[in-house]
C-alpha cells in the first residue's frame, strides 16, 4: 500500500493544517425555544482555534432529511483542556434539522478550524461587542480571549425577547459588562443602541468594536466608527460549498480604497474590517 497519510505537507508559510475528523456528541440540547447547544468530544488538533473561526459540519442524512453540502458553524466554544468543541445553532432548514437529531454517542464529521478569526491588537484595551441572535455564538469565544488578554469588554446583547437572550450568564462569568436590549422592551432600536454606545465611548472610551450579521447594527457601528475613528471587525455569513477557499461561491463585496472587491467569506473571512463591509 502507498503510505498515504492524512498529513498535509504545508507549503504555505505560517498557515495551519485543516483537519477533518469524526467527533462524538457529548450533548445536543435546546438552550431555549430557538437555539441548541451541541458539545462534541474533540481531539486537541481540532482545538487550536481562534475566536471567529468556524467549522464545516457534515450533517447526517436521516429519514426525510438529505442535506448534501456541509454547513458552516461558528465556534461557540473551544476547550482544549476539556477536549470539547461547542456549537450554538438555530434550526432553520434541512441541515440544522438533521444536526438536531444527533444524540449523545453519535458521531459528527467536522472540518476545521476554518477561516480568519477576530484580531485583538495590543493597543485595543476597551472592547465593545454588539451582537444579536445567533451572532452571540460567534462572539462568545472572543469574550474568553479578551479576558485571557486582560482586556475590558462590554457586550450589548440584542434579541427579540428576554427568553431568547443567550449567553448572558456566560458573559457575566467572564466579567463582561453586559447590556441586554430586546425588541419586546423597545430597547433594541438603532437610536437607543446609538445612545448607549455613544455613552460608553464618552464614559469609558472604546478602542475596537466587534459585531456580526445584522445590517442594522453594521450600519450603526460603521457610522459610530467613522465619527469617533474607532476600528472594528465584523463576522459575515455567506452560503458555502467547500469552506476552505476552492470554489469561490462564498464571496461578498467589500469597499476598499474606493473600489469594490470580492472576498471569500470562508477564507479572507468570516471576520472582516467593519468599514469595508457592505450590508446585504
Amino acid at each position: 500500500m502507498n503510505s498515504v497519510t492524512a498529513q498535509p505537507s504545508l507549503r504555505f508559510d505560517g498557515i495551519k493544517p485543516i483537519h477533518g475528523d469524526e467527533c462524538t456528541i457529548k450533548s445536543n440540547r435546546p438552550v431555549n425555544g430557538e437555539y441548541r447547544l451541541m458539545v462534541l468530544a474533540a481531539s486537541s488538533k481540532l482545538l487550536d482555534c481562534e475566536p471567529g473561526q468556524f467549522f464545516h459540519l457534515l450533517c447526517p442524512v436521516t429519514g426525510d432529511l438529505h442535506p448534501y453540502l456541509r454547513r458552516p458553524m461558528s465556534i461557540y466554544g473551544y476547550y482544549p483542556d476539556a477536549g470539547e468543541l461547542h456549537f450554538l445553532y438555530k434550526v432553520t432548514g434541512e441541515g440544522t434539522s438533521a444536526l438536531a437529531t444527533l444524540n449523545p454517542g453519535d458521531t459528527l464529521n467536522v472540518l476545521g478550524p476554518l477561516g480568519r478569526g477576530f484580531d485583538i491588537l495590543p493597543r485595543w484595551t476597551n472592547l465593545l461587542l454588539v451582537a444579536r441572535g445567533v451572532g452571540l455564538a460567534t462572539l462568545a469565544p472572543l469574550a474568553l480571549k479578551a479576558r485571557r488578554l486582560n482586556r475590558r469588554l462590554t457586550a450589548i446583547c440584542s434579541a427579540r425577547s428576554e427568553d431568547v437572550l443567550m449567553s448572558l450568564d456566560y458573559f457575566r462569568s467572564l466579567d463582561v459588562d453586559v447590556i441586554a436590549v430586546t425588541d419586546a422592551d423597545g430597547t433594541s432600536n438603532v437610536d437607543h443602541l446609538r445612545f448607549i454606545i455613544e455613552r460608553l465611548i464618552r464614559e469609558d472610551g472604546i478602542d475596537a468594536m466587534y459585531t456580526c450579521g445584522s445590517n442594522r447594527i453594521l450600519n450603526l457601528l460603521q457610522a459610530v466608527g467613522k465619527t469617533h475613528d474607532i476600528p472594528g471587525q465584523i463576522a459575515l455569513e455567506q452560503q458555502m460549498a467547500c469552506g476552505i477557499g476552492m470554489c469561490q461561491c462564498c464571496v461578498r463585496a467589500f469597499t476598499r480604497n474606493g473600489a469594490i472587491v470580492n472576498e471569500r467569506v470562508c477564507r479572507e473571512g468570516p471576520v472582516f474590517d467593519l468599514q469595508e463591509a457592505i450590508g446585504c
Partner: protein
Amino acid sequence: MLNLETQIGSLTLKNPIMPASGTFSEELAQVFDLELIGAHVTKTITRQKRSGNPTPRVCEVRGSMLNSIGIPSKGVEAFKTHVIPFYRQYDAPLIVSISADTADEFAWLCEEISVPGVDAVEVNISCPNIEEDGKAFAMRPSTTEAVIRKLRSATDLPLWAKLTPNTGETIDVAKSAEAAGADALVVSNTLLAMAIDITTRRPKLGNLMGGLSGPAFKPIALRMAYQCAKSVTIPVIGCGGISTVEDVVEYLIAGATAVQVGTATFIEPQIMVRMVDQLEAYLNAQGLTDIRQLIGSVEDGEASDGLVFMEAAP
C-alpha cells in the same frame, strides 16, 4: 507490484486521480499532501480580471448541487506570478484550465500560459463563444473543431478539451476535438439545471440557472465518457459525480484513462488521496496488478456496436 500509473498522451500520471477544475486550489495543501494525487488542475482562468456571477452561487439539490460561479479570474498575469510558482514545488504535473469568449483570445491565452511549470492546458470550451450567438464552442462539432485548431497551433503542450453535456452531439464533438488535434478529452463539465425557492419564488442561484454536479450527475457523465471512449482514440478523462472508489473503477471500466474528482472534494476534502489508497486496495482485492487491466474493460459485447450512438431513451 501494483501499478497505478496511467498515460495521458505524452504525460505520465503516477495515479489516475486528479481534481476537476474549479474544485481545487492551493488551499487544499492544508488538508493533505498534494504530491499524492496524479495531477493538479487549476480553476479556469481568463485573460482579463473578471468578477464572476452574482451570489448565491451554489445551491443544494437532492444529493447534489448546482453552481453558477462563473469564471472569476485574477487574470493571466496574476496567475503566472502567484499560482504557477506554488505548484512548481510539486512533481505532480500542473494542468492549467483556460477559457475565452472568442477563439482568437483563447489561442492568445493558450500561448501566453504555455510556460515552464505548466504540463498541459485544459481548454474549457463549455463557455459561450460570442461569435456564435453565444453558444459554447463545445455545443457543436464545427465550433469545437475551429477553436481546437487555433489552440493547437498556439501551444506545444498537451491540449485537453473539456466537453459539455449540454449538447446533443457528444460523439461528433468528441471526434471533432480529436481531429483538430486535442490530446485528450475531459468528459465532462456540468449540466445546465435550475432550482427555485418556492417560498420566495426566486431562482436559488443568482444567475437563474447553473450547472449540476455531484452524484446525481454521474450516470449522465459516465454515459458520455463511455460514448467518447468508444468514438475516439485519444485518452478520455472521466469527470462527473465521482465520490467513491467504486465510481472511479466504474469510469475506468467504461474506458476512462484517468478521472477528475470535483464536488466530492467539497464534501470530503481528503477524498482524492483516500481514493488513491482505496484503488490500490481494490486492485489487490481483485487480484489485479495494473489499472490498465480495468481501463476500457467493459463487457458490452455486441450491443455496443449499434447502441453507442443511441441518443434517446424512451
